[in-house]
């Protein structure tokens, strides 16, 4: 078990507010790592810092030993770290299938002159293979019948599944899912859990931010608990129940929690 992502002493402040301060944790290859904590704990900021959407004030992020903190989002994505957002960010005017095709980034094929020249036989074959793979993924997630539908017309839960399908298509080394259950009918939970575990089976490790604790318990191998911008505990979910700091900061709030975070 090696650390695929290692975060060391990450800090970010906005004016006088320390959103993330000396945050350190690691996520192992081939595992699902949960990232939990109360609202305002700095989880979302931490994700933005890891994926290049915000620049850290201090600290390092290593993706398989490569420093990535401060690099622009597209570079980090190309290195194999892809993220989702709190609200689904499908490309609404494009079809579901186009959403998938575009998720598999290929810089050479997107070059202007190459596009003007038109695809070669080999590129056409590669594109056809890609379509087959996209259809297979959609089929697995039960979205095949919607492939020609504009993604913006889908329901909230379907959009989440399209995002999952895009990740499957992109085949990153690590994906960070930011509240994938947010706004999703809990009935879909089992399907989402299967999809998350499917990532690992397909070779993509997962970091998942989620308030739905039964879901976290179901899918994660490790859980990182954040509070007030820093990591207060890391370990398997079971061990955290007996951790008083974690209970005080977060789990203690559980009885009123209904799992339908929006």
């Amino acid at each position, binding site marked *: 078990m090696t650390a695929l992502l290692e975060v060391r002493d990450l800090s970010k402040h906005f004016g006088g507010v320390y959103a993330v301060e000396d945050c350190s944790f690691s996520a192992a290859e081939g595992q699902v790592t949960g990232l939990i904590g109360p609202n305002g704990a700095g989880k979302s900021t931490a994700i933005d810092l890891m994926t290049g959407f915000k620049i850290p004030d201090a600290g390092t992020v290593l993706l398989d030993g490569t420093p990535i903190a401060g690099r622009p989002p597209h570079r980090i994505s190309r290195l194999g770290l892809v993220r989702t957002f709190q609200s689904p960010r499908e490309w609404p005017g494009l079809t579901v299938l*186009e959403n998938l095709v575009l998720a598999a980034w290929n810089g050479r094929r997107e070059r202007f002159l190459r596009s003007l020249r038109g695809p070669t036989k080999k590129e056409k074959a590669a594109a056809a293979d890609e379509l087959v793979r996209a*259809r297979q993924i959609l089929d697995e997630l039960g979205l095949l019948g*919607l492939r020609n539908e504009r993604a913006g017309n889908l*329901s909230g839960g379907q959009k989440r599944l399209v995002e999952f399908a895009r990740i499957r298509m992109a085949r990153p080394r690590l994906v960070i899912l930011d509240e994938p259950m947010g706004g999703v009918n809990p009935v879909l939970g089992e399907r989402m859990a299967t999809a998350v575990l499917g990532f690992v089976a397909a070779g993509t490790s997962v970091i998942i931010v989620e308030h739905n604790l039964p879901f976290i318990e179901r899918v994660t191998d490790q859980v990182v608990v954040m509070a007030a911008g820093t990591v207060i505990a890391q370990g398997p979910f079971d061990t955290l129940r007996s951790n008083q700091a974690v209970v005080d900061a977060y789990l203690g709030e559980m009885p009123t929690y209904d799992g339908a975070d929006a």
Partner: protein
Amino acid sequence: MIDYLVTIFTEGSIFAIMALGLNIVWGWSGDFDLAFYGYVALGAYMTLVLTVGPASSPTEYILGLTLPFPVAVLLATLSAMLLALIVGAIALRHLRGIYFSIVTLGAVYVLYILAGQFVPLFNGYNGLSGLVAPMGDVLGIDYSSYQFFYVALCMVMLTIVLFGVTRLSGSRFGLALRSLREDERAAAAFGRDIYILKLKAYVLGAGLGGFAGALFAGYLTAFNPSSWSPVETIILYAAILVGGRGSTRGVVLGVAVMVMGLQEATRYLPEIAGHPSFAPAFRLILTGIVLVVFIRFRPQGILPERRMRDGDPPGSPGTRPEPAPGPQPVTGPALETGAA
């Protein structure tokens, strides 16, 4: 009658090239560029200063070369792209939406004022003239049949542009630009360098604008600040919106309807004594009305952007028989509850 058709097809081809250029910027990559007509004007000005020879007093302008027309057109196009590279590099770095538009509007007004007030550049408000029948003498075309040559030239150029634009539109480059229009944060999360991609689209669009401007100069034989104003970008937007934003066929149709159609429809309006500007004003009012009607009732335009339709190649893996044909409840909750 034949002269009339020649005029319409020449102007129509030139405006269609312009609109196709702007459509790459706004229709594909989603940036509401208000500087666009500036690139058209620069293309026209540069073509003139590169072909008409040295300035003689009292006129003043830069360069004053006598290059062959095709070379001048090429250089004029490149100069429009260079200006777009500078404006785009600044405006696209961090600005989006209305902030981007304001900066580009500022840029085009700087160019407009410079062209009008800074006489040594393009001879100020008197502008440039003297590009009569470019390539006519080289090709041995006499004056009476020159207009047929020029309309053919413009239509051939439009055909070439259409061919290239159509190919780009369906390519990975075109699709990647659409992803920026739809959601650029997601595009970045999936590896797209949004700044560079948007800049490429911006410069490419401006290049088509400059190219159309160069053809325009050859058609008008002269160009000065009264022959253009930054507001004309809005007419091109009207054409794109009515035709179908993002759609190549739609944009050409939009130019036919909104630029050529409205112009011809209002050409023979009765003169109202004492109000010579009635017809042009009425044209703008009509443009506005059509625009409002389309935004309200058909925002996708007459010929909307076509998206990929994936059929079922028989026997290919991953496909399975569809449910019974006919409208499917695609947005309903059926899929969610059924799968639980």
